[in-house]
Protein backbone atom coordinates (compact mmCIF):
# COMPACT_ATOMS: atom_id res chain seq x y z
CA UNK A 1 0.00 0.00 0.00
CA UNK A 2 1.28 3.45 -0.82
CA UNK A 3 0.95 6.23 1.66
CA UNK A 4 2.48 8.89 -0.56
CA UNK A 5 0.67 12.17 -0.15
CA UNK A 6 -1.95 10.74 2.20
CA UNK A 7 -2.92 12.95 5.07
CA UNK A 8 -2.53 12.09 8.72
CA UNK A 9 -3.78 14.03 11.74
CA UNK A 10 -1.57 13.65 14.82
CA UNK A 11 -2.39 14.41 18.47
CA UNK A 12 0.51 14.02 20.93
CA UNK A 13 1.24 16.13 23.99
CA UNK A 14 4.94 15.36 24.42
CA UNK A 15 7.12 17.45 22.13
CA UNK A 16 9.90 14.90 21.78
CA UNK A 17 7.52 12.05 21.06
CA UNK A 18 5.75 14.20 18.50
CA UNK A 19 9.02 15.11 16.80
CA UNK A 20 9.86 11.43 16.56
CA UNK A 21 6.43 10.56 15.21
CA UNK A 22 6.61 13.32 12.62
CA UNK A 23 9.95 11.94 11.45
CA UNK A 24 8.59 8.41 11.30
CA UNK A 25 5.57 9.52 9.28
CA UNK A 26 7.75 11.57 6.95
CA UNK A 27 9.98 8.52 6.39
CA UNK A 28 6.88 6.48 5.59
CA UNK A 29 5.79 9.07 3.02
CA UNK A 30 2.86 10.48 4.97
CA UNK A 31 1.90 14.13 4.95
CA UNK A 32 1.17 15.43 8.46
CA UNK A 33 -1.93 17.48 7.64
CA UNK A 34 -2.30 18.82 11.17
CA UNK A 35 -0.94 18.24 14.64
CA UNK A 36 -2.16 19.20 18.08
CA UNK A 37 -0.62 18.94 21.54
CA UNK A 38 -3.52 20.03 23.70
CA UNK A 39 -7.13 18.86 23.89
CA UNK A 40 -8.90 22.11 22.97
CA UNK A 41 -6.65 22.62 19.98
CA UNK A 42 -7.11 18.97 18.95
CA UNK A 43 -10.91 19.22 19.11
CA UNK A 44 -10.90 22.32 17.00
CA UNK A 45 -8.58 20.81 14.36
CA UNK A 46 -10.49 17.50 14.34
CA UNK A 47 -13.53 19.49 13.23
CA UNK A 48 -11.86 21.88 10.80
CA UNK A 49 -9.06 20.07 8.98
CA UNK A 50 -10.27 18.61 5.72
CA UNK A 51 -9.50 15.36 3.95
CA UNK A 52 -7.90 13.39 6.78
CA UNK A 53 -7.07 9.80 5.80
CA UNK A 54 -6.13 8.63 9.27
CA UNK A 55 -5.62 9.99 12.79
CA UNK A 56 -3.00 8.95 15.35
CA UNK A 57 -4.15 9.96 18.83
CA UNK A 58 -2.18 9.96 22.07
CA UNK A 59 -4.71 8.91 24.71
CA UNK A 60 -3.49 10.94 27.70
CA UNK A 61 -3.07 14.66 27.06
CA UNK A 62 -1.61 16.07 30.26
CA UNK A 63 -4.26 14.39 32.39
CA UNK A 64 -7.12 14.94 29.91
CA UNK A 65 -8.35 12.11 27.67
CA UNK A 66 -8.37 12.36 23.92
CA UNK A 67 -11.79 10.67 23.48
CA UNK A 68 -13.80 13.82 22.66
CA UNK A 69 -11.44 14.23 19.68
CA UNK A 70 -11.85 10.56 18.76
CA UNK A 71 -15.63 11.01 18.88
CA UNK A 72 -15.49 13.88 16.37
CA UNK A 73 -13.25 11.86 14.06
CA UNK A 74 -15.38 8.73 14.33
CA UNK A 75 -18.43 10.73 13.31
CA UNK A 76 -16.45 11.94 10.31
CA UNK A 77 -15.54 8.35 9.46
CA UNK A 78 -11.80 8.90 9.98
CA UNK A 79 -9.92 5.69 10.91
CA UNK A 80 -8.23 6.06 14.32
CA UNK A 81 -4.99 4.64 15.67
CA UNK A 82 -4.51 5.20 19.40
CA UNK A 83 -1.00 5.60 20.80
CA UNK A 84 -0.62 5.06 24.53
CA UNK A 85 1.78 4.03 27.25
CA UNK A 86 -1.11 2.18 28.91
CA UNK A 87 -1.66 -0.26 26.05
CA UNK A 88 -5.11 -1.58 25.16
CA UNK A 89 -6.05 -1.73 28.86
CA UNK A 90 -5.92 2.06 28.89
CA UNK A 91 -8.86 2.25 26.50
CA UNK A 92 -12.41 2.34 27.88
CA UNK A 93 -14.79 -0.35 26.56
CA UNK A 94 -16.29 2.03 24.02
CA UNK A 95 -12.96 2.36 22.24
CA UNK A 96 -11.11 -0.86 22.97
CA UNK A 97 -11.93 -2.35 19.56
CA UNK A 98 -9.81 0.35 17.92
CA UNK A 99 -6.24 -0.05 16.75
CA UNK A 100 -3.54 0.69 19.33
CA UNK A 101 0.21 1.17 19.27
CA UNK A 102 2.02 1.06 22.58
CA UNK A 103 4.67 3.67 23.41
CA UNK A 104 7.52 3.57 22.76
CA UNK A 105 6.87 2.39 19.22
CA UNK A 106 9.20 1.80 16.29
CA UNK A 107 8.83 3.00 12.71
CA UNK A 108 7.99 -0.57 11.66
CA UNK A 109 5.22 -0.79 14.26
CA UNK A 110 3.68 2.46 13.09
CA UNK A 111 3.88 1.33 9.46
CA UNK A 112 2.29 -2.05 10.18
CA UNK A 113 -0.43 -0.59 12.37
CA UNK A 114 -1.38 1.94 9.68
CA UNK A 115 -1.34 -0.74 6.98
CA UNK A 116 -3.62 -2.98 9.03
CA UNK A 117 -5.95 -0.16 9.90
CA UNK A 118 -6.30 1.20 6.38
CA UNK A 119 -6.32 -2.26 4.81
CA UNK A 120 -9.18 -3.20 7.08
CA UNK A 121 -11.12 0.00 6.49
CA UNK A 122 -11.32 -0.39 2.70
Amino acid at each position, binding site marked *: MTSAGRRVFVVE*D*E*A*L*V*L*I*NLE*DILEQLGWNVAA*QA*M*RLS*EAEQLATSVEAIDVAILDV*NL*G*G*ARVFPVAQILRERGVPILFA*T*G*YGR*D*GLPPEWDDHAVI*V*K*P*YSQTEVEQALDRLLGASV
Partner: protein
Amino acid sequence: MTELDFARIFQALPSPFMILDRELCYVAANPAYEAVVGTPFAQLQGQNLFSLFPNEGEAGVRLRQSFERVLATGEPDTLAYINYPITEADGTVTNRYWTAVHVPLTGPDGTVQHVMQNTVDVTELVRMREATTLPYGSISAATRLIERTRETEASSAEFRRLFQQAPAFVAVLSGPNHVFTFTSDSYTKLIGGRDVIGQTVAQALPEVIDQGFIEVLDKVYREGHVHAAEGARVMLENEPGRPAEETFLDFSYNPIRDGAGNITGVFVQGMDRTESVRAVRRQRLMIDELNHRVKNTLATVQSIASQTLRNTSDFAQARRALEARIMALSNAHTMLSDRHWRDAEVGNLVHQELSAFGDEQVDYGGPTLMVNAKTTVALALVLHEMAANAARHGALSVPEGNLSVKWRRDGEGQLVVDWVERNGPTPTEPVRQGFGARLLRMVVTGELGGGLDLNYDQDGLRAQVLIPAAAYAEQEARFD
Protein backbone atom coordinates in the same frame (compact mmCIF):
# COMPACT_ATOMS: atom_id res chain seq x y z
CA MET B 1 -67.87 -39.87 77.93
CA THR B 2 -66.39 -40.28 81.34
CA GLU B 3 -65.84 -37.02 83.07
CA LEU B 4 -62.22 -36.47 83.92
CA ASP B 5 -61.19 -35.51 87.41
CA PHE B 6 -58.55 -32.88 86.71
CA ALA B 7 -57.64 -32.58 90.36
CA ARG B 8 -56.77 -36.28 90.38
CA ILE B 9 -54.77 -35.98 87.19
CA PHE B 10 -52.91 -33.01 88.75
CA GLN B 11 -52.07 -35.15 91.75
CA ALA B 12 -50.99 -38.08 89.59
CA LEU B 13 -48.66 -36.19 87.25
CA PRO B 14 -45.13 -37.60 87.68
CA SER B 15 -43.60 -34.19 87.01
CA PRO B 16 -43.62 -31.48 89.73
CA PHE B 17 -46.48 -28.96 89.36
CA MET B 18 -47.61 -26.13 91.61
CA ILE B 19 -49.94 -23.16 91.29
CA LEU B 20 -49.47 -19.67 92.77
CA ASP B 21 -51.92 -16.81 93.08
CA ARG B 22 -51.14 -13.23 92.04
CA GLU B 23 -49.31 -12.66 95.35
CA LEU B 24 -47.13 -15.67 94.56
CA CYS B 25 -48.65 -17.70 97.39
CA TYR B 26 -49.21 -21.44 97.00
CA VAL B 27 -52.71 -22.56 96.08
CA ALA B 28 -51.82 -26.04 94.85
CA ALA B 29 -48.89 -28.47 94.55
CA ASN B 30 -48.79 -32.10 93.45
CA PRO B 31 -46.96 -34.91 95.30
CA ALA B 32 -44.14 -34.81 92.79
CA TYR B 33 -43.58 -31.17 93.76
CA GLU B 34 -43.85 -31.98 97.47
CA ALA B 35 -41.17 -34.61 97.00
CA VAL B 36 -38.88 -32.23 95.20
CA VAL B 37 -39.08 -29.44 97.79
CA GLY B 38 -39.24 -31.99 100.64
CA THR B 39 -42.24 -30.15 102.13
CA PRO B 40 -45.84 -31.37 102.38
CA PHE B 41 -48.45 -29.12 100.72
CA ALA B 42 -50.03 -28.42 104.09
CA GLN B 43 -46.95 -26.40 104.99
CA LEU B 44 -46.89 -24.67 101.62
CA GLN B 45 -50.51 -23.64 101.28
CA GLY B 46 -51.09 -19.90 101.49
CA GLN B 47 -47.39 -19.23 101.99
CA ASN B 48 -45.46 -16.89 99.70
CA LEU B 49 -42.98 -18.81 97.56
CA PHE B 50 -40.13 -16.40 98.26
CA SER B 51 -40.83 -16.19 102.00
CA LEU B 52 -40.67 -19.94 102.19
CA PHE B 53 -37.69 -20.37 99.87
CA PRO B 54 -35.85 -17.05 99.99
CA ASN B 55 -33.44 -16.45 97.15
CA GLU B 56 -31.80 -13.07 96.74
CA GLY B 57 -29.44 -14.38 94.10
CA GLU B 58 -29.66 -14.14 90.33
CA ALA B 59 -31.85 -17.26 90.12
CA GLY B 60 -34.39 -15.75 92.54
CA VAL B 61 -34.53 -12.56 90.53
CA ARG B 62 -35.02 -14.44 87.27
CA LEU B 63 -37.74 -16.60 88.78
CA ARG B 64 -39.63 -13.58 90.14
CA GLN B 65 -39.29 -11.73 86.82
CA SER B 66 -40.66 -14.73 84.97
CA PHE B 67 -43.75 -14.88 87.22
CA GLU B 68 -44.25 -11.13 86.82
CA ARG B 69 -44.01 -11.43 83.03
CA VAL B 70 -46.71 -14.10 82.99
CA LEU B 71 -48.97 -12.05 85.27
CA ALA B 72 -48.44 -8.92 83.19
CA THR B 73 -48.67 -10.36 79.69
CA GLY B 74 -50.86 -13.43 80.08
CA GLU B 75 -48.26 -15.32 78.02
CA PRO B 76 -46.46 -18.47 79.16
CA ASP B 77 -42.81 -18.02 80.06
CA THR B 78 -40.01 -20.54 80.16
CA LEU B 79 -36.83 -20.48 82.18
CA ALA B 80 -34.78 -23.05 80.32
CA TYR B 81 -32.19 -23.26 83.03
CA ILE B 82 -32.17 -22.07 86.57
CA ASN B 83 -29.97 -22.89 89.53
CA TYR B 84 -32.11 -23.24 92.65
CA PRO B 85 -30.89 -24.89 95.88
CA ILE B 86 -33.34 -27.02 97.83
CA THR B 87 -33.29 -27.74 101.57
CA GLU B 88 -33.98 -31.44 102.10
CA ALA B 89 -36.09 -32.80 104.98
CA ASP B 90 -32.93 -33.67 106.89
CA GLY B 91 -31.80 -30.07 106.66
CA THR B 92 -29.08 -30.58 104.02
CA VAL B 93 -28.99 -28.06 101.21
CA THR B 94 -28.50 -29.40 97.66
CA ASN B 95 -27.76 -27.27 94.70
CA ARG B 96 -30.17 -28.26 91.97
CA TYR B 97 -30.78 -27.16 88.40
CA TRP B 98 -34.22 -26.75 86.86
CA THR B 99 -36.10 -25.99 83.75
CA ALA B 100 -39.28 -24.16 84.69
CA VAL B 101 -42.37 -23.48 82.56
CA HIS B 102 -44.81 -20.87 83.86
CA VAL B 103 -48.33 -20.93 82.43
CA PRO B 104 -51.04 -18.31 83.13
CA LEU B 105 -54.42 -19.48 84.40
CA THR B 106 -57.13 -16.94 83.65
CA GLY B 107 -60.28 -16.34 85.60
CA PRO B 108 -63.82 -15.91 84.17
CA ASP B 109 -63.08 -12.22 83.43
CA GLY B 110 -60.05 -13.16 81.31
CA THR B 111 -57.44 -11.74 83.67
CA VAL B 112 -54.58 -13.85 84.94
CA GLN B 113 -55.44 -15.08 88.39
CA HIS B 114 -52.94 -17.87 88.85
CA VAL B 115 -49.60 -19.04 87.51
CA MET B 116 -48.92 -22.72 87.16
CA GLN B 117 -45.33 -23.87 87.33
CA ASN B 118 -43.98 -27.12 85.97
CA THR B 119 -40.37 -27.85 86.76
CA VAL B 120 -38.02 -30.46 85.42
CA ASP B 121 -34.97 -31.33 87.45
CA VAL B 122 -32.01 -31.16 85.13
CA THR B 123 -29.38 -31.58 87.83
CA GLU B 124 -28.52 -34.99 86.38
CA LEU B 125 -27.73 -33.33 83.12
CA VAL B 126 -25.52 -30.71 84.71
CA ARG B 127 -23.62 -33.31 86.67
CA MET B 128 -23.20 -35.39 83.55
CA ARG B 129 -21.89 -32.43 81.67
CA GLU B 130 -19.39 -31.99 84.44
CA ALA B 131 -18.38 -35.62 84.09
CA THR B 132 -16.98 -35.09 80.66
CA THR B 133 -15.91 -38.69 80.31
CA LEU B 134 -19.52 -39.79 80.00
CA PRO B 135 -20.66 -40.26 76.44
CA TYR B 136 -23.31 -37.76 75.41
CA GLY B 137 -25.46 -40.63 74.12
CA SER B 138 -26.19 -41.82 77.65
CA ILE B 139 -28.30 -38.74 78.30
CA SER B 140 -31.99 -39.35 77.68
CA ALA B 141 -33.69 -37.81 74.68
CA ALA B 142 -35.79 -35.61 76.95
CA THR B 143 -32.73 -34.33 78.74
CA ARG B 144 -31.07 -33.63 75.42
CA LEU B 145 -34.06 -31.59 74.31
CA ILE B 146 -33.92 -29.57 77.49
CA GLU B 147 -30.23 -29.14 77.06
CA ARG B 148 -30.78 -27.71 73.62
CA THR B 149 -33.41 -25.32 74.95
CA ARG B 150 -31.13 -24.29 77.73
CA GLU B 151 -28.32 -23.59 75.30
CA THR B 152 -30.63 -21.63 73.08
CA GLU B 153 -31.81 -19.40 75.89
CA ALA B 154 -28.41 -18.94 77.42
CA SER B 155 -26.81 -18.27 74.09
CA SER B 156 -29.62 -16.13 72.71
CA ALA B 157 -28.64 -13.17 74.84
CA GLU B 158 -25.01 -13.88 74.13
CA PHE B 159 -25.70 -14.13 70.40
CA ARG B 160 -27.60 -10.90 70.41
CA ARG B 161 -24.62 -9.23 72.01
CA LEU B 162 -22.27 -10.83 69.53
CA PHE B 163 -24.38 -9.80 66.55
CA GLN B 164 -24.77 -6.34 68.01
CA GLN B 165 -21.01 -5.83 68.17
CA ALA B 166 -19.92 -7.96 65.22
CA PRO B 167 -17.51 -6.32 62.79
CA ALA B 168 -19.62 -7.75 60.00
CA PHE B 169 -22.98 -6.02 59.68
CA VAL B 170 -26.22 -7.78 60.48
CA ALA B 171 -29.85 -6.76 60.11
CA VAL B 172 -33.08 -8.69 60.47
CA LEU B 173 -36.02 -7.75 58.27
CA SER B 174 -39.47 -9.01 59.07
CA GLY B 175 -42.49 -9.59 56.86
CA PRO B 176 -43.16 -8.98 53.16
CA ASN B 177 -42.43 -5.25 53.47
CA HIS B 178 -39.03 -5.87 55.06
CA VAL B 179 -39.46 -4.11 58.39
CA PHE B 180 -36.24 -3.70 60.36
CA THR B 181 -36.42 -5.60 63.66
CA PHE B 182 -32.72 -5.75 64.42
CA THR B 183 -29.61 -3.90 63.28
CA SER B 184 -26.08 -4.41 64.52
CA ASP B 185 -23.91 -1.45 65.48
CA SER B 186 -21.89 -1.82 62.28
CA TYR B 187 -25.08 -1.85 60.20
CA THR B 188 -26.28 1.30 61.95
CA LYS B 189 -22.92 2.92 61.22
CA LEU B 190 -23.14 1.88 57.57
CA ILE B 191 -26.47 3.69 57.17
CA GLY B 192 -25.27 6.86 58.85
CA GLY B 193 -26.59 6.18 62.34
CA ARG B 194 -30.22 6.23 61.27
CA ASP B 195 -32.68 4.59 63.67
CA VAL B 196 -34.58 2.29 61.36
CA ILE B 197 -36.20 -0.21 63.75
CA GLY B 198 -39.90 -0.60 62.96
CA GLN B 199 -39.55 0.98 59.53
CA THR B 200 -39.62 -0.73 56.15
CA VAL B 201 -36.44 -0.69 54.07
CA ALA B 202 -38.13 1.68 51.63
CA GLN B 203 -39.04 4.11 54.41
CA ALA B 204 -35.75 3.83 56.23
CA LEU B 205 -33.36 3.90 53.28
CA PRO B 206 -35.13 5.77 50.48
CA GLU B 207 -31.89 6.06 48.50
CA VAL B 208 -31.81 2.30 47.82
CA ILE B 209 -35.27 2.14 46.21
CA ASP B 210 -33.98 2.97 42.75
CA GLN B 211 -30.99 0.67 43.12
CA GLY B 212 -33.04 -2.52 42.83
CA PHE B 213 -32.38 -3.91 46.30
CA ILE B 214 -36.02 -3.98 47.37
CA GLU B 215 -36.89 -6.09 44.32
CA VAL B 216 -34.12 -8.49 45.32
CA LEU B 217 -35.47 -8.62 48.90
CA ASP B 218 -38.98 -9.28 47.54
CA LYS B 219 -37.62 -12.16 45.49
CA VAL B 220 -35.72 -13.67 48.43
CA TYR B 221 -38.83 -13.36 50.58
CA ARG B 222 -41.06 -14.84 47.88
CA GLU B 223 -38.82 -17.58 46.52
CA GLY B 224 -36.68 -18.45 49.53
CA HIS B 225 -33.32 -18.52 47.81
CA VAL B 226 -30.17 -16.92 49.15
CA HIS B 227 -28.94 -13.81 47.37
CA ALA B 228 -25.22 -13.15 47.72
CA ALA B 229 -23.18 -10.32 46.21
CA GLU B 230 -19.49 -9.50 46.27
CA GLY B 231 -18.15 -5.98 46.03
CA ALA B 232 -21.62 -4.69 45.15
CA ARG B 233 -21.75 -0.95 44.58
CA VAL B 234 -24.39 0.68 46.73
CA MET B 235 -25.05 4.40 47.07
CA LEU B 236 -25.72 4.94 50.77
CA GLU B 237 -26.17 7.98 52.96
CA ASN B 238 -23.48 6.94 55.38
CA GLU B 239 -23.25 10.31 57.05
CA PRO B 240 -26.30 12.08 58.41
CA GLY B 241 -27.53 14.82 56.11
CA ARG B 242 -24.89 14.13 53.46
CA PRO B 243 -25.56 12.94 49.92
CA ALA B 244 -25.35 9.21 49.26
CA GLU B 245 -21.82 7.93 48.85
CA GLU B 246 -20.38 5.09 46.85
CA THR B 247 -20.05 2.07 49.12
CA PHE B 248 -18.85 -1.41 48.23
CA LEU B 249 -20.39 -4.32 50.10
CA ASP B 250 -20.08 -8.07 50.25
CA PHE B 251 -23.49 -9.14 51.51
CA SER B 252 -26.13 -11.82 51.50
CA TYR B 253 -29.87 -11.94 51.97
CA ASN B 254 -30.97 -15.19 53.61
CA PRO B 255 -34.62 -16.12 54.07
CA ILE B 256 -35.71 -16.64 57.69
CA ARG B 257 -38.18 -19.53 58.14
CA ASP B 258 -40.44 -20.37 61.05
CA GLY B 259 -40.89 -23.88 62.48
CA ALA B 260 -43.35 -24.75 59.73
CA GLY B 261 -40.91 -23.69 57.02
CA ASN B 262 -42.74 -20.52 56.04
CA ILE B 263 -40.59 -17.51 55.25
CA THR B 264 -41.11 -14.79 57.84
CA GLY B 265 -38.30 -12.41 57.05
CA VAL B 266 -34.86 -11.84 55.60
CA PHE B 267 -31.55 -12.02 57.41
CA VAL B 268 -29.06 -9.49 56.06
CA GLN B 269 -25.37 -9.88 56.70
CA GLY B 270 -22.23 -8.59 55.10
CA MET B 271 -18.99 -6.67 55.21
CA ASP B 272 -18.24 -3.11 54.18
CA ARG B 273 -15.48 -3.48 51.58
CA THR B 274 -15.32 0.18 50.57
CA GLU B 275 -11.88 0.83 52.02
CA SER B 276 -10.28 -2.21 50.44
CA VAL B 277 -11.97 -1.59 47.08
CA ARG B 278 -10.65 1.98 47.17
CA ALA B 279 -7.17 0.78 48.13
CA VAL B 280 -7.12 -1.69 45.24
CA ARG B 281 -8.31 1.03 42.88
CA ARG B 282 -5.67 3.46 44.11
CA GLN B 283 -3.00 0.85 43.69
CA ARG B 284 -4.24 0.01 40.19
CA LEU B 285 -4.18 3.70 39.28
CA MET B 286 -0.69 4.13 40.69
CA ILE B 287 0.62 1.17 38.74
CA ASP B 288 -1.06 2.42 35.57
CA GLU B 289 0.36 5.87 36.17
CA LEU B 290 3.85 4.54 36.80
CA ASN B 291 3.66 2.38 33.71
CA HIS B 292 2.44 5.33 31.68
CA ARG B 293 5.29 7.51 32.93
CA VAL B 294 7.93 4.88 32.26
CA LYS B 295 6.58 4.27 28.77
CA ASN B 296 6.44 7.99 28.04
CA THR B 297 9.95 8.49 29.35
CA LEU B 298 11.19 5.64 27.18
CA ALA B 299 9.42 7.20 24.20
CA THR B 300 11.14 10.51 25.03
CA VAL B 301 14.54 8.85 25.29
CA GLN B 302 13.86 6.98 22.07
CA SER B 303 13.13 10.28 20.36
CA ILE B 304 16.24 11.95 21.82
CA ALA B 305 18.37 9.04 20.63
CA SER B 306 16.94 8.96 17.15
CA GLN B 307 17.15 12.75 16.77
CA THR B 308 20.72 12.80 18.01
CA LEU B 309 21.90 9.98 15.79
CA ARG B 310 20.00 11.16 12.75
CA ASN B 311 22.16 12.39 9.88
CA THR B 312 25.23 12.36 12.05
CA SER B 313 28.67 11.51 10.80
CA ASP B 314 30.51 12.37 14.02
CA PHE B 315 29.61 9.51 16.32
CA ALA B 316 31.86 10.64 19.17
CA GLN B 317 30.08 14.00 19.22
CA ALA B 318 26.67 12.31 18.85
CA ARG B 319 27.44 10.09 21.82
CA ARG B 320 28.36 13.07 24.01
CA ALA B 321 25.25 14.95 22.92
CA LEU B 322 23.06 11.91 23.61
CA GLU B 323 24.54 11.45 27.08
CA ALA B 324 24.12 15.13 27.89
CA ARG B 325 20.47 15.17 26.76
CA ILE B 326 19.64 12.06 28.77
CA MET B 327 21.42 13.57 31.79
CA ALA B 328 19.36 16.76 31.45
CA LEU B 329 16.20 14.68 31.43
CA SER B 330 17.42 12.62 34.36
CA ASN B 331 18.31 15.71 36.41
CA ALA B 332 14.84 17.10 35.88
CA HIS B 333 13.39 13.80 37.10
CA THR B 334 15.58 13.91 40.20
CA MET B 335 14.41 17.43 41.03
CA LEU B 336 10.79 16.36 40.63
CA SER B 337 11.29 13.18 42.57
CA ASP B 338 12.61 15.22 45.50
CA ARG B 339 9.30 17.06 45.57
CA HIS B 340 6.97 14.09 45.06
CA TRP B 341 6.76 14.84 41.36
CA ARG B 342 4.82 18.01 42.11
CA ASP B 343 7.00 20.88 40.97
CA ALA B 344 10.50 22.32 40.71
CA GLU B 345 12.09 25.73 40.92
CA VAL B 346 13.00 27.60 37.73
CA GLY B 347 16.26 28.82 39.32
CA ASN B 348 17.36 25.21 39.94
CA LEU B 349 16.64 24.25 36.35
CA VAL B 350 18.70 27.16 35.03
CA HIS B 351 21.48 26.52 37.51
CA GLN B 352 21.60 22.88 36.45
CA GLU B 353 22.43 23.86 32.88
CA LEU B 354 24.60 26.91 33.37
CA SER B 355 26.58 26.36 36.56
CA ALA B 356 29.41 24.72 34.58
CA PHE B 357 30.20 28.04 32.94
CA GLY B 358 32.12 30.79 34.75
CA ASP B 359 30.49 33.88 36.27
CA GLU B 360 32.44 36.09 33.88
CA GLN B 361 30.65 34.46 30.95
CA VAL B 362 27.23 33.68 32.33
CA ASP B 363 24.88 35.81 34.37
CA TYR B 364 21.49 34.46 35.44
CA GLY B 365 18.82 35.26 38.01
CA GLY B 366 15.17 35.75 38.83
CA PRO B 367 12.57 35.32 41.55
CA THR B 368 11.73 32.01 43.19
CA LEU B 369 9.13 30.49 40.89
CA MET B 370 7.73 26.99 40.96
CA VAL B 371 6.69 25.17 37.80
CA ASN B 372 4.70 21.95 37.52
CA ALA B 373 6.12 18.57 36.49
CA LYS B 374 5.31 18.84 32.82
CA THR B 375 6.86 22.29 32.55
CA THR B 376 9.89 21.16 34.54
CA VAL B 377 10.73 18.40 32.05
CA ALA B 378 9.94 20.64 29.07
CA LEU B 379 11.97 23.56 30.40
CA ALA B 380 14.91 21.31 31.35
CA LEU B 381 15.12 20.01 27.78
CA VAL B 382 14.75 23.50 26.29
CA LEU B 383 17.38 25.04 28.55
CA HIS B 384 19.71 22.15 27.83
CA GLU B 385 19.34 22.56 24.06
CA MET B 386 19.90 26.30 24.30
CA ALA B 387 22.93 25.94 26.58
CA ALA B 388 24.41 23.15 24.44
CA ASN B 389 23.86 25.21 21.34
CA ALA B 390 25.48 28.26 22.94
CA ALA B 391 28.48 26.16 23.94
CA ARG B 392 28.92 24.59 20.52
CA HIS B 393 27.95 27.35 18.11
CA GLY B 394 26.92 30.41 20.12
CA ALA B 395 28.31 32.97 22.56
CA LEU B 396 29.76 30.35 24.91
CA SER B 397 31.84 28.83 22.10
CA VAL B 398 34.28 31.79 22.20
CA PRO B 399 36.10 33.23 25.25
CA GLU B 400 34.81 36.76 24.73
CA GLY B 401 31.16 35.75 24.38
CA ASN B 402 28.70 35.98 27.24
CA LEU B 403 25.15 34.93 28.14
CA SER B 404 22.46 36.52 30.28
CA VAL B 405 19.41 34.54 31.41
CA LYS B 406 16.70 36.38 33.40
CA TRP B 407 13.30 35.11 34.34
CA ARG B 408 10.29 36.82 35.88
CA ARG B 409 6.55 36.66 36.16
CA ASP B 410 4.80 39.33 34.14
CA GLY B 411 1.54 41.15 34.92
CA GLU B 412 -0.57 38.35 33.41
CA GLY B 413 1.20 35.71 35.49
CA GLN B 414 3.18 34.41 32.52
CA LEU B 415 6.65 33.05 33.10
CA VAL B 416 9.05 35.08 30.93
CA VAL B 417 12.58 33.87 30.25
CA ASP B 418 14.93 36.23 28.43
CA TRP B 419 17.96 34.54 26.91
CA VAL B 420 20.48 36.94 25.46
CA GLU B 421 23.81 35.93 23.89
CA ARG B 422 26.37 38.63 23.12
CA ASN B 423 29.79 38.89 21.53
CA GLY B 424 29.51 35.46 19.96
CA PRO B 425 29.87 34.30 16.35
CA THR B 426 27.10 35.09 13.89
CA PRO B 427 24.52 32.26 14.02
CA THR B 428 24.58 29.93 11.01
CA GLU B 429 21.74 28.24 9.15
CA PRO B 430 21.97 24.79 10.85
CA VAL B 431 21.48 26.44 14.21
CA ARG B 432 18.19 27.94 13.07
CA GLN B 433 16.96 24.67 11.58
CA GLY B 434 18.48 22.10 13.92
CA PHE B 435 16.92 19.80 16.46
CA GLY B 436 17.34 22.38 19.25
CA ALA B 437 15.35 25.04 17.43
CA ARG B 438 12.70 22.53 16.41
CA LEU B 439 12.39 21.18 19.96
CA LEU B 440 12.23 24.70 21.36
CA ARG B 441 9.39 25.67 19.08
CA MET B 442 7.51 22.42 19.63
CA VAL B 443 7.84 22.54 23.41
CA VAL B 444 7.12 26.20 23.97
CA THR B 445 4.41 26.91 21.44
CA GLY B 446 2.99 23.40 21.15
CA GLU B 447 3.33 21.56 24.42
CA LEU B 448 3.11 24.56 26.74
CA GLY B 449 0.92 26.74 24.52
CA GLY B 450 3.30 29.63 25.06
CA GLY B 451 5.10 32.18 22.95
CA LEU B 452 8.57 32.06 21.46
CA ASP B 453 10.50 34.93 19.96
CA LEU B 454 13.82 33.97 18.37
CA ASN B 455 16.16 36.61 16.96
CA TYR B 456 19.42 35.56 15.40
CA ASP B 457 21.32 38.83 15.81
CA GLN B 458 24.75 39.58 14.47
CA ASP B 459 26.47 38.76 17.79
CA GLY B 460 24.27 35.89 18.90
CA LEU B 461 20.85 34.50 19.71
CA ARG B 462 18.33 36.65 21.52
CA ALA B 463 15.31 34.64 22.64
CA GLN B 464 12.25 35.28 24.73
CA VAL B 465 10.21 32.38 26.04
CA LEU B 466 6.70 33.00 27.38
CA ILE B 467 4.91 30.28 29.30
CA PRO B 468 1.28 30.92 30.28
CA ALA B 469 0.29 30.46 33.93
CA ALA B 470 -2.23 27.80 32.90
CA ALA B 471 0.60 25.64 31.55
CA TYR B 472 3.17 25.90 34.34
CA ALA B 473 1.11 26.54 37.47
CA GLU B 474 -1.70 24.00 37.19
CA GLN B 475 -1.25 20.59 38.69
CA GLU B 476 -2.15 17.72 36.44
CA ALA B 477 -5.09 15.62 37.57
CA ARG B 478 -3.59 13.04 39.92
CA PHE B 479 -4.78 9.67 41.02
CA ASP B 480 -6.67 9.62 44.28
